[in-house]
């Protein structure tokens, strides 16, 4: 059995962030990074750009062999976790290797959740979660003229835009009443949907897919409205679910994902979890939830790594905050924190500025003098500063007028004075 | 000052004790000489400075701003590996005292002439041994010379004694201000090659050094009640005492070797003069011994069975040699050129009293104090000393101390 001090399963943002924290204090302790993927680390977020051809697979790797050599990282690809034996502090990999660890981080991420649509399993379809998915989809574009995208979330929207940019006729089907729920309210979503329509994307919002079937080389989907859509490509982007199958019947506590405390530790000694696989506390509700937010994965990975190395500078995870930056057709949509006041107490202050002509939108939510959320389209603010204003519950009362009229400069002023 | 060419140095010259000392320094080849003038030492450092200026001595001359720095620069140089020399006396010595007392504790083999001068105060610029006698418990080796030739020879020997690995201690060669410093006589100069051979390579900082090639801490805080503190301190003190005791043997061996090489013989510790059949003896130290010996000769001619004991090495105190000598006589009179205020006698007398305690039979002794502040101790004085000392044998005791010059 091989031995390693630190074993990290997964190699995307949470894993790399944890690695970074560990190497801050322990430059020499043996560290092994295992991933089921065959590639050097990359981010799932970049995959739509691989699909469109804007980015090339070899250009988007987050770390390379030189980095691993410099940082004394034993990088094992093509071998995800198969089983976990918490009594022996050991794992088996899909390649048959057995590894004993002193500290284990589970950052195995999430995989596409495939909806139970009748006929779908017999229908050729694509997903977009791995580099191989993206490369396959990019290759399929050569012959494809049309595509249907199931799901109006971030991946689906990104994919749709990138497909239409290379000349593919695209339809988006979203069963919920708006795109990008959770990040933008209906009004903002409307602006985004409108832009897609103007750019030639067919939007089928509020439509449920009730069936799928092969159609020649392509696919045919049936909607609850009775409509049928045929396309050369079927892309399923209906969300993701944490990869936790290797924990089945084991003692590590899971719900939707792996349950962790505010140091990203699981209920089992010497095991941590971070990123999309982890179910960590939410900043607003205090409840534990899963969420595929990249900056949150980075933050969780950082805290997990610090906890694994007993870094005295560690601060507990403040809780997940919805964060999103979304560029579409040259526009920028950004949201930090809560975007829908309907979920908030009645006395929440709401400032809304919408200019449909200019295609600008901005909403600021303030409760008890603190920023609860800010979202905007083609408006200007620094999301990193806003995130800190939310987390640190900075009192905005003295500068509220200025903040509502100019969140950018006021935010910078507050930052410079408060935590510069 | 003789203006002898380097290539043709005279075998003998006529000079005073200060110049003889300068010649000894030139022959001993120190790396550094630090100087600061003070009467009656000044001409000594002037000679040395001129020798260095003339290239006779290849040494660094450090003419510093006071005796305190004189000894301090020698500490630094010696810790770096240099063979070093200086000379002082009187108030200069008192001013030097702080680094002076530190020298033997660091086991630095520095050689220094004390051109003895009487103490302050009253203000006095003349000879006397009060300054040198104040140094008794500082842990330096102290050798007192009788003649100009002995000044020269002893000073060369001093380097060998100081650097001997069984000793590693600083040495004072004391020569009396006025009488030896300015007394002119003929002296023989040893051959340079023979002196080189006699002294060998300098060996000054093998045991303690300020040298980046051998980094060490020099004189860290030692003692206190912490673990190992008392025992470490005691080991330093024991080592110092052992070095002093070793010095008695090394001084003796060095004088024997000197005699073999250069043909001049000196008693290394205690000199006995006409003592073999003597009933009593006078005890002297330094330059007065010559006059004392003459007085003994005169008394002998008059039938007195008197001899003379000269203390040459005063530190370490040659207890065993002195005890052996004292057993040969039945009464003594000790002539001092300085004062022990506490004991109301001369310091040499005071110390010899301690030696007398170790004799099987008690013998009477008188303390004479003379030659203070440049005054002479004449044959007449010694005649009084001899008479009073001898009278003790008949039970005619004299109350100590006897102030020889009190009516002059």
């Amino acid at each position, binding site marked *: 059995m091989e031995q390693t001090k630190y074993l990290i399963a997964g190699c995307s943002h949470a894993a790399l962030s944890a690695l970074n924290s560990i190497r801050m204090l322990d430059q020499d302790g043996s560290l092994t990074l295992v991933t089921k993927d065959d590639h050097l680390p990359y*981010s799932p977020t970049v995959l739509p750009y691989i699909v469109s051809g804007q980015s090339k697979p070899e250009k988007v790797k987050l770390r390379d062999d030189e980095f691993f050599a410099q940082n004394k990282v034993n990088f094992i690809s093509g071998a995800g976790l198969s089983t976990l034996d918490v009594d022996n502090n050991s794992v088996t990999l899909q390649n048959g290797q057995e590894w004993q660890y002193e500290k284990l981080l589970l950052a195995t991420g999430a995989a596409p959740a495939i909806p139970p649509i009748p006929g779908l399993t017999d229908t050729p379809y694509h997903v977009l979660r791995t580099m191989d998915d993206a490369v396959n989809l990019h290759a399929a574009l050569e012959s494809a003229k049309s595509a249907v995208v199931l799901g109006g979330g971030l991946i689906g929207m990104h994919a749709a835009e990138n497909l239409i940019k290379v000349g593919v006729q695209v339809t988006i089907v979203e069963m919920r009443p708006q795109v990008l729920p959770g990040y933008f309210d209906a009004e903002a979503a409307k602006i985004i949907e409108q832009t897609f329509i103007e750019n030639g994307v067919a939007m089928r919002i509020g439509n449920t897919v009730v069936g799928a079937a092969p159609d020649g080389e392509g696919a045919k989907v049936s909607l609850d409205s009775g409509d049928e859509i045929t396309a050369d490509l079927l892309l399923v982007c209906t969300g993701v679910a944490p990869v936790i199958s290797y924990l089945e019947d084991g003692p590590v506590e899971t719900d939707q994902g792996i349950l962790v405390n505010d140091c990203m530790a699981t209920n089992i000694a010497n095991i941590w979890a971070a990123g999309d696989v982890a179910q960590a506390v939410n900043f607003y509700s205090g409840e534990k939830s899963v969420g595929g937010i990249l900056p949150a994965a980075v933050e969780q990975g950082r805290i997990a790594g610090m906890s694994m190395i007993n870094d005295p500078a560690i601060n507990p995870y403040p809780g997940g905050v919805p964060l999103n930056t979304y560029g579409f057709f040259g526009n920028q949509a950004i949201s930090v924190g809560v975007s829908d006041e309907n979920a908030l107490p009645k006395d929440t202050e709401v400032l809304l500025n919408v200019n449909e002509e200019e295609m600008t939108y901005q909403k600021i939510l303030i409760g008890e003098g603190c920023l609860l959320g800010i979202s905007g389209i083609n408006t200007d603010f620094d999301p990193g500063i806003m995130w800190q204003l939310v987390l640190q519950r900075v009192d905005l009362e003295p500068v509220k007028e200025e903040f509502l009229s100019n969140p950018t400069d006021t935010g910078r002023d507050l930052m410079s004075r408060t935590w510069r | 000052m003789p203006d002898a060419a380097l290539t043709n140095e005279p075998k003998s010259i006529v000079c005073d004790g200060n110049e003889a000392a300068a010649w000894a320094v030139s022959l001993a080849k120190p790396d550094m000489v630090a100087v600061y003038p003070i009467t009656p030492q000044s001409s000594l450092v002037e000679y040395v400075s001129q020798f260095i200026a003339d290239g006779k001595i290849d040494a660094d001359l450090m003419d510093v701003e006071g005796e305190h720095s004189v000894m301090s620069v020698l500490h630094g140089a010696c810790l770096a590996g240099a063979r070093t020399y200086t000379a002082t006396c009187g108030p200069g010595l008192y001013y030097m005292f702080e680094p002076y007392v530190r020298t033997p504790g660091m086991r630095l083999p520095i050689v220094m002439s004390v051109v003895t001068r009487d103490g302050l105060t009253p203000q006095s610029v003349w000879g006397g041994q009060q300054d040198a006698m104040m140094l008794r418990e500082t842990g330096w080796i102290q050798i007192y010379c009788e003649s100009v030739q002995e000044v020269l020879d002893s000073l060369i020997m001093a380097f060998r004694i100081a650097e001997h690995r069984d000793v590693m201690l600083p040495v004072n060669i004391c020569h009396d201000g006025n009488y030896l410093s300015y007394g002119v006589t003929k002296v023989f100069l040893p051959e340079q090659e023979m002196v080189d051979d006699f002294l060998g390579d300098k060996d000054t900082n093998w045991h303690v050094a300020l040298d980046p090639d051998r980094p060490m801490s020099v004189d860290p805080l030692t003692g206190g009640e912490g673990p190992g503190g008392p025992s470490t301190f005691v080991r330093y003190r024991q080592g110092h005492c052992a070095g002093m005791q070793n010095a008695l043997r090394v001084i003796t061996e060095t004088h024997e070797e000197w005699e073999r090489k250069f043909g001049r013989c000196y008693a290394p510790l205690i000199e006995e003069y006409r003592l073999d059949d003597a009933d009593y003896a006078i005890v002297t130290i330094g330059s007065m011994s010559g006059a004392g010996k003459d007085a003994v000769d005169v008394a002998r001619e008059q039938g007195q069975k008197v001899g003379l004991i000269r203390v040459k090495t005063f530190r370490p105190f040659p207890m065993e040699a002195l005890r052996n000598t004292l057993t040969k006589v039945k009464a003594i009179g000790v002539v001092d050129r300085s004062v022990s205020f506490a004991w109301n006698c001369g310091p040499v007398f005071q110390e010899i009293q301690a030696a007398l305690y170790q004799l099987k039979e008690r013998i009477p002794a008188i303390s004479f104090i003379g030659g203070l502040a440049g005054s002479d101790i004449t044959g007449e004085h010694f005649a009084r000393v001899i008479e009073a000392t001898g009278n003790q044998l008949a039970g005619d005791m004299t109350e100590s101390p006897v102030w020889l010059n009190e009516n002059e």
Partner: protein
Amino acid sequence: MGHSHNTIAFHQDKCDGCGECMTVCAGAKSGTADTLHSRLKIVPSIAANDSFELALCRQCGDPKCVLNCPSGSLTKNHKTGVVPWDAEKCVDCLLCTVGCAYGGITYNAAAGHVMKCDMCDGDPACVKSCPTGALEYNRSAEIYNNYGELEDLFVPGLAACQGCNSELLIRHTMRKIGSNAVVATPPGCIAGMGTVGFNGKTGSKIPVFHPLLTNTASMLAGAKRYYNRIGRDVTMVALAGDGGTVDAGFQSLSGAAERGEQMLYICVDNEGYMNTGMQRSGSTSFGSWTSTTPVGETLHGKTQDAKNMPVIMMMHNCEYVATASLAFMDDYYEKLDKALAAAKRGMAYLHVYSPCPTGWRIPSESTNEVCRKAVETNFVTLWEFAPDEGLRFTHSTDDPLPVEEYLNLSGKYRHLDDAQLTHIENSVERKVAFLNGFMLATSDDGAESLAQ
């Protein structure tokens, strides 16, 4: 990691909000004068009138923008310290801007991309353009790195009082000088903290010794002369307190300076005999409480001004004389380099003001603040002097803060009455005037000032 980098420092008190930096940055990076393209942003402060705040990339050591980037377009260059942005790899997702809490990487709508400061390859245009000195390219990291790579020549665990910065001083000084040196630490705080060691155990890796309080310069001079004689170039260093320098050790130092003995003599001035219980020294300042100038019914601290030792040393044939304060380490390092060069020719004297948290009754965490305020109020002046170059101030004495701002920081001045305060104010002014006069008479800078 373990490596520091130079930074652009912002001195808010000097910024008048002119915005020239933003115009210049936009010009340098985008070829337009439109400040929308500026990578640093000066914003007016809402809290205070006529005050300005700054948003600028910090080139973080552990940058979150890099960890957030999904496309590999942001990296941390550990060599230069800069976080460069690669436009080719960027997919304009803006996730980097979420990671940055400083507004350091921002979306430039006009360009359609994010933008951030790249430090102009170590020669930032904004700094050069700033007319008030509010922006400074601080090279201290570079200096600290250089020092960090040098070997620490003292043992760990020297027992200096909490908050005392003398340990920092001696460690950094000896790192720079290296092991081919002989170090004298006469009785005082530096020896007391264990540099020479105890009971047969040493406190350093280099030859180190206790001289007497009185003979530091002489012992070093003797050792140096001998090394010169045998052709070895060994540096002599004194790390002495003010008692061992201005009082008991003064004569040997004076003599060594007059003779041009080659050494670096550093006086670490904590204005009294602090190691032995905070007694008055010749360097104790007027009005100070010490244990021998106590405060009572009739006495109210020291009744004389301190001996102005560095000025005295200027008159001593030294090759180099300078004052320093550890709140200005860059300044000290420069002077140390010059002093080391000068010590090869003769006496180099550095006088370092070193507040004593224990004896001055200041909180241990405020030592550096006391150092800084001493200089900013002109209580301590920073200057250097070389015979050929005259006197030059290395920190301006213009527009000092009121000296009370310095005095109020130390308990040893707590009892001062108005008359004492006036005395100190006058004496500070006199000292500065004297130095200015000396500067005008001796240096090129002074000659220029006179010509104007």
